[in-house]
């Protein structure tokens, strides 16, 4: 693990607790060739996969936590374990002080779950019908339902979707409607697995703003997975990174930059014929007189770098960017392979 921030959390403060959780799956190995097919018939080959390996973490009530990791790292497995859809091979899980295995119904009254690749809306009914169904099945009191319905209609801009069949909605509209339905019972904890999957910039913006708002104003605990690190950084206060079934980082986003050396990007646009040379930077790309360098500003102070630039001839323009979290994490993923 790269870093672990230790804080004392009491039981009442804890929304989610995973304690040495291991989840093992068996994957059958199959061959297509004749000999392999026969071998498979008599002695099938199995591969044991540790989707989660002794994972422990706590999430405090009211926190907005990003749960990230490369493909196959164990993110969705964690979400399914927390939602009670799977049981761990070993270890203990507590959600809102209850066991997902034993207290499924009680937890589901306080939990909202949204998987980006599936919908909870009734496919062949108008969206409003799905909302009415949820009200009855969750037994939501009229006043709570009305208040939440008004809130989601306004904040998610779904008024014009209410009479449309779920199957006729675009992906972005469907996600907004799903998110709205998930919130109708005032969940205390929300698990979102890839909620921005396939959304355009406007729909994504709407969703991010909304999630930040309900976390801030309603104190709803949110755990979200996504491959879009910039989105995650904008939404969450803390990031849990998982790799190979283990927690690889638990802390704030800027902490990741420190660990990876806090690289900054310098984009220099040069007059024709001039070739820049940045002593403390590494040239990443070059095209039509535009040079991009990367430099670690923790090792080479920005003052020194700026001095170098001011001494350089032929510079038309300079742009300096903090490394995007996307780049920082891509570097981390590459180092974990």
């Amino acid at each position, binding site marked *: 693990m790269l870093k672990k921030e230790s804080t004392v959390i009491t039981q009442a403060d804890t929304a989610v607790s995973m304690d040495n959780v291991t989840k093992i*799956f068996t994957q*059958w190995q199959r061959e297509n060739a004749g000999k392999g097919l026969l071998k498979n018939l008599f002695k099938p080959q199995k591969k044991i996969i540790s989707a989660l390996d002794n994972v422990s973490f706590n999430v405090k009530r009211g926190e907005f936590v990003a749960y990230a990791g490369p493909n196959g790292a164990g993110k969705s497995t964690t979400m399914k374990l927390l939602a009670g859809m799977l049981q761990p*091979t070993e270890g203990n899980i507590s959600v809102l002080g209850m066991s997902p295995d034993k207290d*499924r119904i009680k937890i589901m009254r306080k939990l909202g779950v949204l998987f980006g690749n599936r919908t*909870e809306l009734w496919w062949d009914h108008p969206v409003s019908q799905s909302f009415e169904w949820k009200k009855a*099945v969750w037994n939501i009191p009229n006043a709570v339902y009305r208040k939440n319905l008004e809130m989601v209609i306004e904040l998610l801009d779904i008024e014009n979707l209410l009479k449309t069949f779920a199957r006729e909605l675009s992906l972005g509209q469907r996600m907004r409607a799903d998110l709205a339905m998930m919130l109708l019972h005032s969940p205390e904890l929300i698990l979102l697995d890839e909620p921005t999957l396939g959304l355009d910039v406007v729909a994504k913006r709407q969703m991010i703003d909304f999630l930040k708002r309900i976390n801030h104003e309603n104190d709803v605990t949110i755990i979200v997975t996504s491959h879009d690190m910039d989105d995650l950084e904008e939404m969450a206060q803390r990031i849990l990174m998982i790799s190979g079934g283990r927690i690889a980082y638990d802390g704030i986003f800027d902490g990741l930059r420190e660990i990876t050396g806090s690289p900054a990007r310098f984009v220099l646009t040069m007059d024709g014929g001039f070739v820049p040379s940045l002593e403390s930077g590494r040239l990443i790309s070059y095209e039509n007189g535009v040079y991009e360098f990367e430099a670690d500003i923790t090792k080479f102070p920005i003052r020194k770098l700026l001095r170098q630039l001011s001494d350089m001839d032929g510079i038309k323009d300079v742009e300096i960017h903090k490394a995007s979290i996307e780049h920082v994490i891509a570097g981390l993923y590459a180092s974990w392979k």
Partner: protein
Amino acid sequence: MADKMTWKRFLKLLTVYAKMDLGSLLRDTKFMLIAIISDIFANISAISGIFLLAWKFNGIGGLDRYEILFMLAYGSIVNGTIEVFGSPNAAFPSRIIGRGQWEHMFIIPLPYGIQLLTGFFPFTCSGRFLSGIVLMCFAVPNLTSALSWQQFFLLAGNGIVSIIIIVALSYLVSSLAFYAPVQCEEISTTVRYSIEHTSTFPLSGMPDFMKLPLLTIFPAGLTAWLPALIILGKTPVFVTIYPVIFAALLSLTAAHYFKKGFRYYVKKGINRYHAGGHRC
């Protein structure tokens, strides 16, 4: 938001599904009516062969024409009731498992049994039930002796027992879908429809080696023929209890294996790693 399941709450849940179903009927009336009428035609054509034979030969195996019609109507009502409560999927649990739809059920704060029982579609899935009622209305007045109130009581009681047998069998075979979701997705459909088609044949006069399996390991005879005999008073009294005992044992067995399969599914099942895979 109390957790307690009361009759009032149960009825409220049924009402929600009924309202949704009525909504479907009223929104897409033309297409829904076509679907209902198609179900009625499909049901009548499925049983008309046996009835025509009974008409031609003035009965089959000790049952006269209208007793055969009574038996066929009984089977239609039983299967129609299952469709009204069990369509589209609750009576075909292997479909729910094979299509990964159980994951939707995990996040609903109701016991799984209640979720399955309250899927109520009294309008759009009523074709078979309605045709069964109409056939029964033709059969009963034409029976050689009028049905007594005790026989109507037996009709209702046996109907419930037959429903339990069919549903229990469907859940028993569906427990296999927890181990191989893709391969067994339609296993309950196959078994249910096989039972339903076989149940239209009157077993009177058949040799024991053919009759016994149809009253035990593949209990099609318990879903129309034997109940019809019991209701019409054509069996010894002690036979009356047999379908009840069978239904109880089958339900317990189905519950045991379904729970066992479910535990396996929750412990081991996930789409990417499961041997049979799950559809997402």
